[in-house]
């Protein structure tokens, strides 16, 4: 592959990473905006318990405001995960083993924290 095509491909993957980041932020902002009036107006202890990933997923089909807000926050958290995966894809396409390895190492570090905190 020539240097120019390679650079062109990098730019394409970079554009895709940018799109992932933008979509994540906008999707979450929309969900939070829609659900916020409900959260603001309905004060009460029932809505202030801590957020858990499992609960947000369970509430998803019901489409209630609390579930939507939880989904908005989850999308925000998922966005950097997709950013990492897209970066891994970029290095894989470029046959850049060193940086593919480092990206996967970052994924392992992030996952370790989540797993240990859950234990």
């Amino acid at each position, binding site marked *: 592959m020539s240097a120019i095509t390679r650079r062109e491909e990098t730019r394409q993957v970079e554009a895709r990473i940018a799109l992932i980041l933008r979509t994540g932020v906008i999707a979450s902002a929309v969900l939070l905006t829609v659900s916020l009036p409900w959260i*603001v107006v*309905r004060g009460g202890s029932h809505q202030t318990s801590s957020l858990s*990933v499992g609960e947000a997923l369970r509430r998803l089909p019901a489409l209630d405001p609390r579930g939507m807000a939880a989904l908005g*926050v989850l999308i925000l958290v998922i966005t950097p995960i997709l950013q990492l995966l897209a970066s891994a894809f970029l290095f894989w396409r470029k046959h850049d083993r060193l*940086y593919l390895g480092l990206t996967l190492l*970052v994924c392992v570090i992030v996952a370790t*924290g989540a797993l240990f905190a859950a234990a």
Partner: protein
Amino acid sequence: MFRQLVSWTGYGEDMTLTTGFELIILLGAVAAGLLGSLLGLGGGVLIIPMLTALGVDIRHAIAASIVAVIATSCGAASSYVRDGLANIRLGIFLCVATTSGALLGAVLNGVLPARALFLIFAAVLGWSGVVMYRKRGRTLARVEPPEDAPAGRLRLAGRFYDPTLGRERRYAPQRPALGFSLMVGAGTVSGLLGIGSGALKVPAMDVAMDLPIKVSTATSNFMIGITGLASALVYLQRGQVLLALVAPIALGVTGGAAIGTRILPRLPAARLRSWFVVILALLVGQMLYKAVAG
């Protein structure tokens, strides 16, 4: 007065947040995002003093803030990555350091007493003020590496389009080991205090690694979301993230930051910064008071 708006049944348990309180934190988050973007600081360093002043437990404030930090940095990173300003290799290399640090920070957050958190926060806030003040009038006078310079084992060198030169500019990060070590520290502070800790990344990237400021800002934003993710997952799993706090804060800070970017060109930035030193001094005082009085 604000304490009457919120009644606590204790840390880690349910609490009652009134409509008035929710509105106040929403407006406060907009203000924090707006000020943060005008001054080149993240919203996190401003939202946490505000929440604790309203009587919110500092650990809940930190957990809500880190989610808002992910939102603002991902938004900013998207345009930097699209414009080819963020160095993804450098970002991933340094993310190994910042995510490791962030995990350490999130663990320390669960162990350290609240007073220690206030004290460290006051120190970081003060340092952010110093960094922000020094940034004024900085010029870019770095030596451009030759076209055929050896790439080095880490291949971190890159190029970006510099409109002042009217052409692409090459750069080669220096002292990667030192930059990496400083980034472990920046990541730890980010995980511990729920902030993007941009002020700590400046010495590592601009000074130690000698990067052009545009590249360091762009790459730093690329990293903040991933670093925030590492500690946010720990806080989520620990049950420290409260939906009633995080929803208005994430939305308010991103909205405020978006407004800030729009109006920034029309404002006297230098004068704003001088004023802001006064606000920062007050916030440092407030955090120190909380550290001492408990």
